[in-house]
């Protein structure tokens, strides 16, 4: 009996990680050339995607293997985007950094003195206003763009499915 012929080859396994490497390199290059962080992430992702799709279609494994390579790359690129985003927005990372850089262990009050809820809120409001996702008029805040609301609805749905609550603080009615 003949051994089954593989519908994929070694290149199919290597193309997505190579795409991710290109994504990372382009993104770092862009940031070091003073491109805003979000734009640098988009530029890196696009460069990696172009490489992945081109290399996958030039490879001899066919359309379905090429599509799978693109999906694998998209998953890896999504992870990298969030890795960069974690450093930018994650509270846990910032709290760990404050504890790490303090000369002695910190109390909760000590942590709050270095990184308070007010600072967290100020930064987020600045970002939301800068991206025009919200608007401010006479001290009142309004929704400007629905995109974040859609994301909020999707995450709320996932929260209800997996945790039975729509928030870590407020139980579902």
């Amino acid at each position, binding site marked *: 009996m003949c051994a089954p012929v593989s519908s994929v080859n070694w290149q199919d396994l290597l193309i*997505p990680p190579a795409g991710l490497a290109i994504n990372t390199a382009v993104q770092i290059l862009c940031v070091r050339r003073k491109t805003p962080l979000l734009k640098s992430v988009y530029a890196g992702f696009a460069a990696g995607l172009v490489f992945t799709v081109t290399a996958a279609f030039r490879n001899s494994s066919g359309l379905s293997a090429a599509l799978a390579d693109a999906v*694998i790359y998209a998953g890896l690129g999504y992870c990298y985007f969030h890795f960069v985003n974690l450093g930018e927005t994650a509270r846990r990372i910032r709290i760990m950094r404050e504890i790490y850089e303090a000369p002695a262990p910190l109390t909760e009050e000590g942590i709050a003195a270095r990184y308070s809820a007010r600072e967290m809120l100020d930064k987020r409001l600045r970002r939301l206003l800068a991206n025009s996702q919200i608007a401010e008029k006479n001290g009142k*805040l309004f929704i400007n763009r629905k995109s974040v609301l859609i994301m909020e609805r999707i995450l709320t749905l996932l929260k209800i499915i997996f945790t039975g609550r729509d928030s870590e603080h407020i139980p579902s009615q």
Partner: protein
Amino acid sequence: MKTLIWGFAIFADGLLVQLLVWRFRRPQRQTKAMLLLMFGVALTAGLAFFLNPGGFSVFSVPSPQTPLETAHALSLTVSLILAWMITFSAVEADSPSLVIMRRIKEAGPAGLDKNDLYQYLNDELLLTPRIRDLITDKMAVETNGCYALTAKGARMTRLFIFWRKLFKLDKGG
């Protein structure tokens, strides 16, 4: 096409197992438990392919028959698992930006007073739960009300400090 179908199917199975386990009892260290479950499912599928070199079919979709096909399908699954791991962190904990959007939406056409937001989103809601997460995930330890990083927490913090310095960025958060 089988790489795509099997890659997604194994991930979907993992997701279903996670949902069933979470409905029964939510683990304390959710991300770690989720990864163990998901990779367990992927490993089981990999073993099933390996132990059936002649292949088998589910709903007329043939299984991967060669080690390369198996590796390609599992690469897709792993990429989806990692993407889900990142997304799940936003399901576990409330994102302050999304909470802001939700509060503004709830305020309706009159808009949300900025001061209400500062009163609602205080240290107790934004800071304390994240410090607790660090203890749960063994990133930090608490002794007599003082917090210090564990070796694991310090390693992670150094990685993010290095990455932020590479980008010439501030502390973030």
